[in-house]
């Protein structure tokens, strides 16, 4: 607690967000919940990027650039994922991802 805020603090936060996202993806049966998990994971990554940008002069630009690109990609991914979810809903009348098991081995 007494250290000045450094890279590691941010990395711990990013890791937490990442793990929460992963667990969210693994536990939610609602397709949109899975999507939220993905967003969390991406946010964890973003925190890391921005933290590197802040604390490592070599990445001062790259970190923020990558964060921006990740945000944009997340928006695109959310749009496509939602479209897929809507299609899924049209076909299965539910958004429970466990019903999508037609491809099981």
């Amino acid at each position, binding site marked *: *607690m*007494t250290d*000045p*805020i450094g*890279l*590691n*603090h941010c990395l*711990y*936060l990013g*890791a937490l*967000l*990442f793990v*929460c*996202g*992963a*667990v*969210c993806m*693994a*536990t*939610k*049966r*609602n397709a*949109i*919940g899975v*999507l*939220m998990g993905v*967003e*969390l994971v991406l*946010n964890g990554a*973003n*925190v890391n990027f*921005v933290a590197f940008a*802040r*604390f*490592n*002069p*070599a990445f*001062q*630009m790259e970190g*923020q*650039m990558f*964060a*921006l*690109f990740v*945000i*944009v990609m*997340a*928006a*695109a*991914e*959310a*749009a*496509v994922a*939602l*479209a897929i*979810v*809507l*299609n899924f809903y*049209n076909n299965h009348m*539910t958004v429970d991802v466990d019903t999508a098991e037609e491809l099981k081995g």
Partner: protein
Amino acid sequence: MDINFHTFFFYLIAILTGICAIGVVVTRNIVRSAAWLLFTLAGTAGIFFLLNADFVGATQLLIYVGGTLVLVVFGVMLTAQGPFISMKTGAAEWVISTIVGIVLYSALTYSIFTSSLYFPNPPHADDPADSRNSVKLGMGFLGLGVGPEYHEPSDKVGATPPVRTSYLLPFEIVSVHLLVVLIGAAYLARAKRRRGGAS
């Protein structure tokens, strides 16, 4: 104890963000989950502001909170029909997922910790004015070199002027990508007549 406002607010926001993130996972109701996610994202934006990434933070608010999340909630509302709002996950799955999550988090913190032991924090310039770099971001997007200098490997030193990274091409690629995604999503989500719907 040398707690200044920066440190204080960082801890405050980070802890709140973490709690909200856990809230996203444990809440059963998907809309409430989205509300928690909103706070998580807003907290992340706050962290970005604290890390002197104003532009990224504002972008996070504008695109994530104002765009993506609204879209997600919109999707929830379009697909919400009573029982689907909270779909129960089995206890066993909870246990497994939690264990795996904790293991993963331990692994991550362990690797962060070990790497920080061997690679200590690089020195960072703490001048706020230096880090307010929305202008540099914009220049990077416009194709003006803003990154670190890079010298072409050459026999003669100084034969070519140093190259600086610029982001015009990725920017364009992302733009086109967004356009394609827009069209694709509109195509996927368009109202379709069901096959044989007449019967």
